[in-house]
């Protein structure tokens, strides 16, 4: 299958790549661009470990084709911290022990950031439903919910 050139922006950087028409964005990120922070847990959109945003919209990158992101703005976990400064969500995930093995963590952080951009004061239930597409097998989710809420409080300037 012949490859197609694609121009896009990832975490603010201009990026050009070639990919085949059937190649998922996740494979492009991981195999062609060396951005392995997004993980493949299922390849079928069930686990959310590959979550990224495309033009501000939260997607499973395993269900988006590489050729679909021509001209788009993509944000991945690699763009979440600024230099040595972690995003509050990242910091609270570490402090609240919201990760054990950590393989679902990039996807959950991207999803949680997307939630807080839309809703700065979610209820626990809203957090749980928003993150229902992101599977975590280690934590039982409790500490993830706590970390999202404490990061949200900090981002609202309450701490």
């Amino acid at each position, binding site marked *: 299958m012949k490859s197609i050139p694609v121009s896009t922006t990832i975490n603010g950087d201009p990026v050009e790549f070639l990919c085949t028409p059937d190649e998922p964005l996740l494979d492009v990120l991981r195999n062609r661009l060396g951005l392995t922070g997004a*993980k493949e*847990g299922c390849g079928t959109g069930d686990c959310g470990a590959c979550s990224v945003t495309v033009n501000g919209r939260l997607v499973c990158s395993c269900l988006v084709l590489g050729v679909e992101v021509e001209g788009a703005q993509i944000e991945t976990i690699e763009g979440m911290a600024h230099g040595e400064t972690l995003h509050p969500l990242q*910091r609270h995930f570490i402090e609240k022990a919201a990760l054990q093995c950590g393989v679902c963590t990039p996807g959950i952080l991207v999803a949680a950031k997307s939630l807080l951009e839309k809703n700065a004061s979610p209820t626990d239930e809203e957090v749980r439903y928003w993150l229902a597409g992101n599977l975590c097998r280690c934590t039982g989710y*409790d500490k993830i919910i706590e970390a999202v809420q404490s990061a949200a409080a900090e981002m609202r300037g309450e701490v």
Partner: protein
Amino acid sequence: MALDDQKRAFKYVGTTPNRPDGVDKVTGKAQYGADITAPGMLMGAVLRSPHPHARIVSIDTSAAEAMPGVRAVVTGKDFPAVEDQGFADIGETCMARDKVLYDGHPVAAIAATTPAIAKAAIRAIKVEYAPLPHVTDVDEAMLPDAPVVLEGRALEHVPAGMSQNVTNTCEFGHGDLEAGFTKADLILERSFKVGAAHQGYIEPNACMASYAADGRADLYCCTQGHFFVRAVCSALMGMEASQLRVTASEIGGGFGGKTTVFVEPVALMLSKKSGRPVKLVMTRDEVFKATGPTVHASVDCKIGMTKDGRITAGDMTLRYSGGAWPSGTIEMGAQAGFAAYDMPAVRTLGWTALTNRPKEISYRAPGAPQAVYAVESLIDEMCQQLGLDPVETRLKNAARKGTLSSYGVTFDDIGMVATLEAAKAHPHWSAPLGPNQGRGIAAGFWFNFGGNTCVSLNINADGTASVTEGNPDIGGSRASISLMAAEELGIPYDNIRTIVADTASLGYNDNTDGSRVTFAVGLATIKAARAAIKVMCDRAAAMWGIDAEAVEWIDGAAVPAGPNAGKFPPMSLAEIAAMSFQTGGPIAGHHEVNVDGAGVSFGVHICDVEVDPETGHTLVTRYTVAQDAGKAVHPTYVEGQMQGGAVQGIGWALNEEYIYGRDGRLQNAGFLDYRIPVASDLPKIDTVILEIPNPGHPYGVRGVGETPIVPPLAAVTNAVSRAIGKRMYQVPMSPPRIMTTIKGK
């Protein structure tokens, strides 16, 4: 290495610092199995059997081999015969030889320049199968005329005349059952079924192998034990262990499922044949079909009880199947079933039978949840019938120090009573319930293990310390190990870095399993630190010109022991380290040991559910876990183990099972149909950590990781049964099963 002191005051142990791998894991930098690459690397793919049971007549790989970009093809014939039966069985799960034994059994593998070419080449391989009759249910597999999965695998103590699928039997217990049942006012006997649950780790099995022309090889993989990977892969490849270096990547969950190999030997053989590095990553479909879930089980349980709730006798028959190869899990289930109770008379009889399913691999407290589920469900039903309080009844029968356990050992200090008391005192236990709601309680037990462990601890010249250990960190163990090193050395946690070394850097370490790491690696770390402290005390003594015996280590510094030793100000670790090059050279301590003395642990869970009588859908509305952790080294991570284990058990109780069709094929090989709990399914999981010190560890640490998956099957069952007013005897309790019970069949 016995407990130092029950009332020792800890400075670092018991605090909750950030984990050393935290930043890498929240920024996407941490490298997991599928993230490792090498120059010139090929991509592998595996062809799998669509049949549950068939003879392989022929495999024609010629068309695949002729495809441009295909660099190697591997089938079972490429692997040498292996003498060790355990390794041979593992090898056959990685690549079939003469027969395929389950849907998804690997038949051939390809390495090619791109994933697309590898997938296309897989489709070009022609396999001729002669299908054989199959069996996927343990009860059916034990029938005398069942299709035989493997011949000649029964152990010597299995009675003659049974199906050849029956490979093992075991019996445990003590006391006079007949006399016990005679004393009972109520005797109930019930049959239970437990589906096979998968560990459900989010990271699919993955590895990257590089085999060099001179016979040396490097392997990177996500595993719970790279030393075991080296042992089994070198045997299967016919190479010396010293020539295979295995490096464990970060691991994206294991829960027992990554204590063996599936893709690693195949990648090594593809690399050997192609002369290039090969990456092999499973799809989720492959993970479900062809890695090991736990056993599925069928259980008959009979208990006798007096009117006031004293258990007089218990008798249980367990039938487990660990798939197409013999499995020893039945022995653990049969020992654990009644272990939480003081049983005047008890017998557990276990059977294992082969079925056309993938080879079972350990899943968190392997074998215990299935057996304990039956006991805890039946006790609850008897409490209902006799009008007894389920906590008081359990307290009345609880095992305690001096109790002869159901597996023959007399218990030392254990936490069963304390854990029950904690559950009873928790506000959850007395909170009101609404309509269609029910509350269940259940206890659980697990042994915990120690095992082979090596730790090296180096004192750096700047006054910090590096700890080198050999157990992949699946839940924060590097933090816990650093905490124990900090405690012993008397320097801050942040001055210590713990790393997991490859197989060439340390002696053998058993797998990260059996709830062993914080206990056993912690113990070896403490001993390694004490060895380094001995060297530092010697150096201080030499600098002061006094006897080495006259120096002791207090709060991170060498000090003269008593007024007769001489008057010198304390010499800190940093001061001794700074002068180490001048006083004899670098300072280190190490310790190698096969640890025993892991203390057993008990947990009690309380579960509230609301069952929709129209649909049978169950919502868990409140959940509390109480567990004995010995000394909790990093209490937040201990809570995480308790919460995570409980939620895995909740998933098993309500949703998770392998569903095989009449055609013997797995029908739900994906997260959509094999549904693990998601965030919106769950309430907060409340935790109560009890600390009953383990006499077998200097700080009193017990393993905590496995016990929390043991009680939930029964805790949820008891809650659902009370909510709907009828007893449930099968997990998972899917909505259709609950509706069938509500409607009375």
